[in-house]
Each structure stands twice: as structure tokens, then as C-alpha cells.
């Protein structure tokens, strides 16, 4: 099962749904996470207030980002940390590769960082003959399988126990057919422990970077970021430049929101605060742009950079739950991915803003109040204006717009056997019509409402 990056969302989703029992399981598993989130959120009377604060702090930070980034750099340097700036993914990868080369490093562990996924770090290092070991359990599983993560918080959520058992049997020599989660986790733990001990370099992500202190916070449930960073002689933390918050006290807002939104936990098991390298250790921070300043310049989309990657919008999204993360063919899937990725590559990701019913549930769960579904709608307008929508759709909608602007023509079309074909081009009664594939057409009534009105009311 390899990642097919060429399929558009609708096609990939259709393939996913072909296995209906698995789709049901995927939907129910993530719905369960959503319910845990609800319970945690509804348990805090100040929940909506926290969201508002988080949103305001992030809005403020984004409007003053240049200052905060420089303040952060200054303070981090004063703490003895080396700060690197990367324009794009390639830059980011090169910076890390240079550090690896300079120190002649062989053994690398990496805790979860969606940014390194976005930049394709593993693949890049692989082409240089260097292997990184992902130490987040879910990430390790998908790494063994040569797949990208399908979810930013639960990377292997598309896999069932049986799949994990098969994968571990193949790569860790566990007993075939033993699906016991405890047994499998223990096998992974032993395997990873070895990797931690051997490691020379630990790469981590960053959840929050604090301008005032130059420190940063990494949140995990497995403690794998700490295991890595504490064992290796070099620690590189990679962050998109939007991870910034002004002050340490603001963490009290974000740490309360993050885990509750993500999994319904009050806080992540480990919220580790890094400030300076320990004796004899080197610490680096790579701050990455990779299209973020372009997004910051788009008035309609800039506040997508408020995102704290909690994945609540994934778990609540009825489309995501039924199409799986891989159908979004990007490192960050789900609703937020659908408003971030067109900025990175409009042509390749033009399908994503359409992979939504605009139900709005994403915007409601978002702990930093990103107007996700409104941005999906706005991206659709941009993509059409820029010509990234296929012609059949365009022709159909143009015809429809023409008709609906002309009351007489509209009524005439309607009279032609309730002229579905011209009025609602997608409601044609034939086998090629996607509506008809699994749904009946509405039965055409004898008269339209307007005809009835004229007969009975005028």
C-alpha cells in the first residue's frame, strides 16, 4: 500500500471508501476522539474565552511577527543556541545536512515534526544515504511501511492492529498474528530504546517558541522528544515561523487548549521546555518560511497561520473521517491542510478546497478560531479566477448562471420535462451521472410551485 500522490482527493477518497468496514472503523475511531475533545472542552466553563484569547494572541503575534522573530533569535542566541533561517524546504534540509556532515553523524532520531514532513527531510536525507529513525510510535509504524503519516497527531490512524502486527512482524520480528497492543508496543519500545541510546543527533519539532525567553516547548505523549534530545550530543529543533508566541505566560492559554482539542486530555503527558544546550551539547533552531510569508501577505488567508496543529479540525471533519488522510496527498491533510496547501502549490492542490461540504464544524472546534470553512470558500473563488478548475465544470456552471439570470428562460427550461438537464446539469438521469450512481432522482412533479401559485393564488 504505497502513497499515490497523483490521485485527486475525490478519486483517492472513492478508493478509500471501497473498503466500507474499514471506512466505518476510521470514522468511528476519529469520532470517538472528537467526543473526547467535546467532553474536555465542555468541562471548562471558560473554553470559549480561552479560544478567544488564543486567537487574539496569535493575531497580534502574526501582525508583529518580524519583531517577535528577531527578539526570539536574540534571546535564543544569548542562551547559546545557534539559530538558522530557511527560506524554503530545500534550505531547511540543506542546513540540517550541513550539521550532519560537519559532525560526521550516522545515527539520527527524530520526534514528530510536521514541518520536516512538509520539507521532505527524510526523503532528502535518504538520497544522501542517511537514515533517520522516527521515534513517535505512530510515525515509526508508517515509516516502516514507507507511507507518509495520515494525520498530524495520530500518524498511523488509518491502520488497524492487524496491520501494525504485520508490519512489526516484518520489521521487528514479532510473533506473526499477535495483535496484542501491549505486546506490540513493548516490541517498539525495546527497538526505539536502542535507537535513542545510539543516537548522535536528535531532531524535534517545536510547538511554541517564546520570543521573550528564546526558549521553546515541545509537546508529546510518549516523551520521545525528550529521550532523543537528552541522549544525543546535538539537538536540532525545526519550526515554521508561525510557532511564535510573545511571552511565556501565554503558554497557559495554549497548553490548556492544545491537548484538549487534540485528544481530550487536559494536557500532553510531556510539555518540555527547552532553553539552552546542556554542557557539551549543541542546540540548533531552524526557522522556516517555506511559503508562510506569502500566506501572511494574503489578507483572506493569513490567519490560517494561527494554527497550532491540534488536528481537532481533522477529527471533526465528516469528509476527512471518510476519506483518510492520504487522500489529501499533502503532509498536512484535513481542513487546515486544504487552506494551507494551495498557498504552497496552487495547481497541485487545487482539488483540496473542494474536498469539503463547507459544513463549518472545523471552524467551530478550532481552538484558535480560524475561519477554516470560510477560507475554503474563498480559496475556491481564487482557484477559479486563476484558472485551476477544469473546463467541464466551468461550462456547466456558466450555462447554469446564464439560465438563472433569465427568469423566462429558466421557466422554459423547467417546463421541458422539469428540464433537469439544463437547470441542474449534475442531476441528469443516466448512468454516467454521479448523482444517479447511488441515488434516485427526485420524481418530477406535475407542476412547478410557480405554476401552482398562478393557478391557485393569483
Amino acid at each position, binding site marked *: 500500500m504505497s502513497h499515490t500522490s497523483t490521485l485527486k482527493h*475525490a478519486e483517492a*477518497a472513492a478508493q478509500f471508501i471501497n473498503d*466500507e468496514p474499514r471506512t466505518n472503523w476510521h470514522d468511528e475511531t476519529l469520532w470517538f476522539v472528537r467526543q473526547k475533545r*467535546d467532553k474536555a*472542552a*465542555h468541562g471548562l*466553563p471558560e*473554553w*470559549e474565552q480561552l479560544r478567544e484569547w488564543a486567537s487574539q494572541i496569535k493575531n497580534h503575534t502574526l501582525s508583529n511577527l518580524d519583531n517577535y522573530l528577531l527578539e526570539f533569535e536574540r534571546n535564543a542566541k544569548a542562551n547559546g543556541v545557534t539559530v538558522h533561517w530557511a527560506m524554503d524546504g530545500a534550505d531547511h534540509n540543506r542546513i540540517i545536512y550541513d550539521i550532519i556532515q560537519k559532525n560526521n553523524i550516522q545515527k539520527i532520531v527524530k520526534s514528530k515534526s510536521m514541518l520536516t514532513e512538509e520539507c521532505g527531510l527524510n526523503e532528502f536525507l535518504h538520497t544522501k544515504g542517511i537514515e533517520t529513525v522516527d521515534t513517535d510510535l505512530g510515525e515509526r509504524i508508517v515509516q516502516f511501511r514507507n507511507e507518509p503519516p495520515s494525520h498530524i497527531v495520530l500518524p498511523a490512524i488509518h491502520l488497524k492492529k492487524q496491520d501494525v502486527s504485520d508490519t512489526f512482524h516484518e520489521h521487528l520480528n514479532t510473533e506473526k498474528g499477535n495483535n496484542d497492543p501491549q505486546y506490540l508496543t513493548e516490541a517498539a519500545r525495546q527497538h526505539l530504546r536502542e535507537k535513542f541510546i545510539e543516537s548522535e543527533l536528535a531532531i524535534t519539532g517545536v510547538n511554541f517558541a517564546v520570543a521573550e525567553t528564546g526558549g521553546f516547548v515541545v509537546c508529546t505523549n510518549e516523551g520521545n522528544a525528550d529521550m532523543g534530545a537528552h541522549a544525543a550530543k546535538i539537538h536540532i529543533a525545526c519550526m515554521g515561523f508561525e510557532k511564535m508566541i510573545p511571552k511565556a505566560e501565554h503558554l497557559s492559554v495554549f497548553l490548556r487548549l492544545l491537548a484538549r482539542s487534540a485528544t481530550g486530555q487536559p494536557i500532553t503527558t510531556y510539555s518540555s521546555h527547552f532553553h539552552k544546550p546542556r554542557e557539551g551539547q549543541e542546540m540548533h533552531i531552524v526557522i522556516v518560511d517555506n511559503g508562510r510569508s506569502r500566506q501572511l501577505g494574503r489578507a483572506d488567508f493569513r490567519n490560517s497561520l494561527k494554527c497550532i496543529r491540534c488536528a481537532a479540525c481533522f477529527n*471533526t471533519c*465528516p*469528509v476527512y473521517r*471518510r*476519506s483518510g488522510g492520504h487522500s489529501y496527498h499533502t503532509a498536512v491533510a484535513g481542513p487546515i491542510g486544504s487552506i494551507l496547501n494551495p498557498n504552497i502549490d496552487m495547481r497541485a492542490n487545487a482539488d483540496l478546497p*473542494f474536498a*469539503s*461540504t*463547507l*459544513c*463549518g*464544524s472545523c471552524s*467551530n472546534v478550532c481552538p484558535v478560531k480560524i475561519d477554516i470553512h470560510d477560507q475554503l*470558500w474563498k480559496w*475556491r*473563488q481564487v*482557484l*477559479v*479566477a486563476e484558472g485551476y*478548475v477544469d473546463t467541464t*465544470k466551468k461550462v456547466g456552471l*456558466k450555462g*447554469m*448562471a446564464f*439560465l*438563472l*439570470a*433569465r*427568469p423566462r428562460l*429558466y421557466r422554459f427550461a*423547467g417546463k421541458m420535462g*422539469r428540464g*433537469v438537464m439544463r*437547470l441542474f446539469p*449534475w442531476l441528469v438521469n443516466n448512468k454516467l*451521472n*454521479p*448523482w444517479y*450512481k*447511488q*441515488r*434516485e432522482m427526485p420524481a*418530477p*412533479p406535475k407542476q*412547478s*410551485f*410557480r405554476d*401552482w*401559485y*398562478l393557478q391557485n*393564488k393569483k
Partner: protein
Amino acid sequence: MHADEHSHIKNEQMKVGLFIPCYIDQFYPNVGIATLQLLEKLGCHVSFPLNQTCCGQPMANSGFASLSKSCDKNFVSNFRGFDYIVGPSGSCVLHLKEHLHDEQHPGEAEHIRKHVYELTEFLVDVLKVEKLNASFPYKVGLHNSCHGQRGLHLSSMSERNLPAFSKPQQLLNMVQGLELKMPSRPDECCGFGGTFCVFEEAVSVKMGKDRIADHASNEVQYITGGDTSCLMHLEGILKRNGSKVKTIHIAEILNSNA
């Protein structure tokens, strides 16, 4: 809330423009008839502007908002001069509220944006209906359509930490004999989503099937809601699968004779 601003207008003095979305006009005239009769029963003076077509939403939600300009113009010329515009579709009403513009008649477009109401919100907020002479002795499941709920705030939303309420439920509770059943996921999307229903056919149908299964586990006889588009989608799936469960617009229930 514009209810208070007009609370001095008696129902019979209210000039209500009846907005019947294009697919209701063409496929579900009974929904239009029920809406009209219900509003008249409640004493409103209702007229149906004869040259109306569509709110422009199908184009706009597909990324072609630029194409809906003439549609908007037509809407404004049909619906100017009413105290209220009422339509039995949350999704079309939301679209109008958010996107109706007319460069030549900006004031009139604005008046419409501020005075266009979805049927149940009009009944609850403007007419302040407290009892209905309706009876519908069946087990009914309510489908909260997303645009009505999250867009127009017709009811509280499961994601938010805010007090619970529901305008459609409030009205259904006034109907004699009706046994209301809420699905276990009270506000999950049905998967219609405008052109999503064909461009993302697989996901759309799967979402619809799942909503139906949720309602079916309550052994409902009808699924109702305020959006005919959602109901048309669910009905299409129910019929294809030979189900006995029927769909019915909330206007038809509220107008059903005792």
C-alpha cells in the same frame, strides 16, 4: 436580531416576500405550498414575486461567485420593497445574507440581506409562534442542516460550549402526536454540499448513508429538516435502497392539518 426593530408590525401588516429556491420550485412544489399556507395561517400577507429564480449559491460555492452577479440583480429586483423575505431553505438564506450584492441598488440589497429569514427562524424570532394547530402522529428524526445550524444559528452546535437551544425543535415540539428522535450525532453533515454531491460522489453518498443509518437506528418513519437540498440527497439514497423511511420538509409538518 431584527425582530425587535419590527415587533410593532402586526403579522397581517407584514409584507412578506416568499422566496422559493429554484430546486424547490421545480422538484418540491409541496414545500413551497406548505410554506405559503403556513405563513398565511399565521396571518402574514405573503406574495410570491413571479420572476424569481435562484439565490446564486450553486455558482458561488463552486468558486464562481463572479458568475452570480446577474442572478443577484434579478433577486434584488424581485424582492425589494418587502418587510421580510422568507424562504424554506437555510442554505439559500445563508448565502443571501452573506453574499447578496447589487452595485446599482446597494441599499436594497442590504435591506434584503438584513431581512431575509429562513422559515423556522422567522416563525420563532419574528412571529414568535408559541403554538401551532398541527398534528403529525409519526416518529420523526430531525436533520440539522449545517448552513441553517452553524451558519444561521438555528440551533446550538455540539462543538461549542454555549447554552443549548433549537428553533426547529421548539416548533416540532408544538406539533401534536409527533415523536421527535434525535440521531446520536445530532449535527453531522449529510454530505450534500452543493456540487460536492457529484464531484465528491463517493464521500457524499457515504456521508448520507451514515446519517440515514443513525436515524434508522431510532426507527423513525420520517427524516425532516429545513433544507430541501439535504433531504433530496437523503431521499435519493433511501429510495435507491428501497427504504421505508421518508423525507419531509419541516414546513410540511408544521402545516399538516390537525
